[in-house]
């Protein structure tokens, strides 16, 4: 066989060729000294589009939003030193929510590493605790394989961000270019299929259950298991709840859906979690914001089946009876095959009980208020967009209201920072979503405090004509901080009032967008309708909302899942 002669390329050329070979169409980044040669190669081609953000945190969040909404690996490119440290918040955000991302960072030349060179930082050291894996490339010959490994690790198993740190001299060194089709690593072999015996045991438990409950999380969304989950829920007739990260994994409008669970979950979902006799947990991790105090949760006996791709998520906070490690769609396929032949119990009494809990109407709020209620804005947002928009959010009260009131029917439509809880995530994430889904309706639900954390990205939105709709729920407070201070700190609103707020309408106009201030409930719906008609424009809607509104239900920190504060209690 003739050996095909491969060309010698520079490291910078290799980086771009690798991205092309991976099918990467968009990279979010910001240039700087250490990555100049890579930017030079970007300039010479047109297959990979580069989106210039205004701050590296925005690049990481945008790549993250791109990935969450498209199931592709998000890519960002930053320079050494401050370029990388600025991106760290975005990398940690992606890590906590298991988002597949590849971060390419420049590094000072290999001979200068460790000498405290200009814009040097120990990128692999700084990012080690917040990446799935990272690499420092020390030889141009390793560059292509390392990038291939990075994409492989990011996207397989429990996904996560992977950083590749590339010293400047490596980008000018030359070697033959060959992009491997696949890589094998003896130390990294994520499982796919679940254990057949365990699956059989689990299905038997489900068939015997009198008070079954399904609880699914972000893993269902990330593994594209929504169709199988839908099949399982419909076929079994069991009630289901989603975590904050799992919203859209099951249709939010289906009668079997009990709403989100957890700290700000619905009364019925939390009660059903506590009182069920068999709990099927799928791609969720029983975290503190979900089940509250694990000792309280353990007070009621129930059998727990837990499906997750990551063994370390199982029996971490809650002891599990039937652990199943595997890729969720594969495992659920096996479940469905076995369920076909079995017969479930009559769970009429259980549904009746759930119906009574539902009767609490735990999300009710004062509809007669003369002030704009934030919940009302979100209900109208849902109506006006027909439930079909991509909704990104920042972090705080508005995030919880969006999760409660926007009914997601499809996965990958609800984009928020659940694990790390990163204020500033919403706007740059929305840029990534819009880039991955041109023509789609994208709204960023935010608050006056969160939006100011990555506000500079309004400029990026202008440059790339991203018609994001910003729904700013402006109560002049860090609302969630204020709520905790009201409940647990004797109404001492320490530093949670946002004074000297900018005129957001003028600010949006300053960036070349348009804005609108809404301060009356009657104007909410017309403003939204007008705004979503403008398909080509970014519109900043500044809703002045009731400053005293709180998110209910609420489980206070450290309390049990049924120890909820309800709006009617106050």
């Amino acid at each position: 066989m003739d050996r095909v002669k491969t060309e010698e390329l520079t490291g910078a050329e290799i980086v771009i060729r690798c991205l092309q070979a991976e099918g990467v169409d968009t990279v979010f980044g910001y240039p700087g000294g250490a990555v100049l040669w890579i930017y030079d190669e970007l300039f010479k081609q047109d297959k990979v589009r580069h989106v210039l953000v205004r701050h590296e945190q925005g690049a990481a969040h945008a790549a993250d939003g791109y990935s969450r909404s498209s199931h592709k690996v998000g890519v960002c490119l930053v320079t050494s030193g401050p370029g990388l440290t600025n991106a760290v918040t975005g990398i940690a955000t992606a890590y906590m929510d298991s988002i597949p991302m590849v971060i390419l960072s420049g590094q000072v030349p290999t001979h200068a590493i460790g000498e405290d060179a200009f814009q040097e930082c120990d990128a692999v050291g700084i990012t080690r605790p917040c990446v799935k894996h990272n690499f420092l490339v020390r030889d141009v010959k390793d560059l292509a394989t390392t990038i291939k490994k990075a994409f492989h690790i990011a996207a397989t198993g429990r996904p996560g961000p992977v950083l590749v740190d590339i010293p400047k001299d490596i980008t000018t060194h030359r070697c033959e270019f060959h992009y491997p089709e696949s890589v094998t690593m003896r130390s990294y072999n994520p499982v796919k299929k679940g254990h057949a015996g365990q699956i059989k045991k689990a299905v038997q438990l489900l068939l015997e259950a009198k008070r079954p409950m399904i609880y699914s999380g972000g893993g269902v969304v990330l593994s594209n298991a929504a169709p199988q989950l839908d099949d399982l829920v419909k076929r079994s007739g069991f009630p289901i709840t989603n975590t904050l990260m799992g919203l859209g994994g099951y249709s939010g409008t289906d009668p079997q859906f009990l709403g989100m669970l957890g700290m700000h979950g619905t009364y019925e979902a939390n009660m059903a979690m506590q009182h069920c006799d068999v709990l099927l947990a799928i791609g969720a991790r029983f975290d503190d914001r979900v089940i509250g105090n694990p000792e309280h949760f353990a007070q009621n006996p129930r059998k727990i089946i837990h499906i997750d791709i990551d063994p370390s998520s199982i029996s971490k906070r809650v002891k599990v009876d039937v652990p199943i490690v595997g890729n969720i769609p594969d495992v659920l396929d096996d479940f469905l095959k076995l369920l076909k032949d079995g017969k479930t119990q009559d769970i009429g009494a259980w549904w009746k009980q759930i119906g009574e809990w539902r009767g609490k109407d735990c999300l009710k709020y004062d509809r007669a208020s003369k002030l704009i209620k934030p919940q009302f804005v979100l209900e109208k947002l849902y109506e006006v967009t027909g439930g079909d928009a991509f909704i990104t959010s920042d972090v705080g009260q508005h995030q919880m209201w969006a999760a409660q009131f926007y009914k997601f029917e499809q996965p990958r439509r609800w984009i928020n920072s659940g694990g790390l809880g990163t204020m500033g995530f919403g706007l740059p994430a929305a840029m990534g979503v819009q880039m991955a889904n041109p023509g789609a309706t994208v709204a960023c639900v935010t608050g006056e405090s969160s939006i100011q954390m990555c506000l500079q990205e309004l400029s990026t939105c202008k440059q790339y004509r991203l018609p994001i709709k910003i729904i700013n729920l402006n109560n002049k407070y860090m609302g969630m901080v204020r709520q905790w201070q009201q409940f647990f700190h004797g109404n001492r609103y320490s530093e949670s009032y946002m004074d000297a707020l900018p005129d957001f309408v003028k600010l949006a106009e300053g960036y070349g967008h348009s804005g609108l201030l809404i301060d009356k409930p009657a104007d909410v719906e017309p403003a939204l309708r007008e705004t979503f008609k403008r398909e080509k424009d970014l519109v900043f809607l500044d809703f002045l909302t009731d400053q005293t509104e709180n998110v209910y239900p609420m489980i206070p920190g450290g309390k049990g899942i049924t120890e909820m504060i309800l709006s009617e209690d106050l």
Partner: protein
Amino acid sequence: MRHIISILVENEAGALSRISNMFSARGYNIESLTVAPTEDASMSRMTVVTKGSDEVIEQITKQLNKLVDVVKVVDLSEAEHLERELMLIKVRAGAKEREDVKRMADIFRGRVIDVSDNTYTIELTGDGAKLDAFIQALDQSAILETVRTGASGIGRGNRILRA
């Protein structure tokens, strides 16, 4: 409970920090940690001695397995195993004490590997308890310096840890 965990890890820069980082980030205890290359130069073998409840040890092994560089993990204390630690200890050994120190080293099957006018340096191998016992047996004020490697472990009989 005390556990001795053996880890085969890719011999790559940063592998040690990934592992020690994981322990500190998740609040797990490390009593000792040793690491060195194996007969296969591409891999290192690490032995970690740690303490924790069964749940904690289960999480530790899971979290170790999750690290991309880690090839294999085994909790040696789950079954029969051997455990050895090396200690170098420098003790005062003037004309008066020489005899006694030498005799004590002999009892513990230690070897004197360096001698000066007024010191002995003794090499001693064994499990941790034996090394502790030797230290206890010496005149405390005579101990000038102690270096211990931390435990290394291996399974008994046919129990083999390989990639």
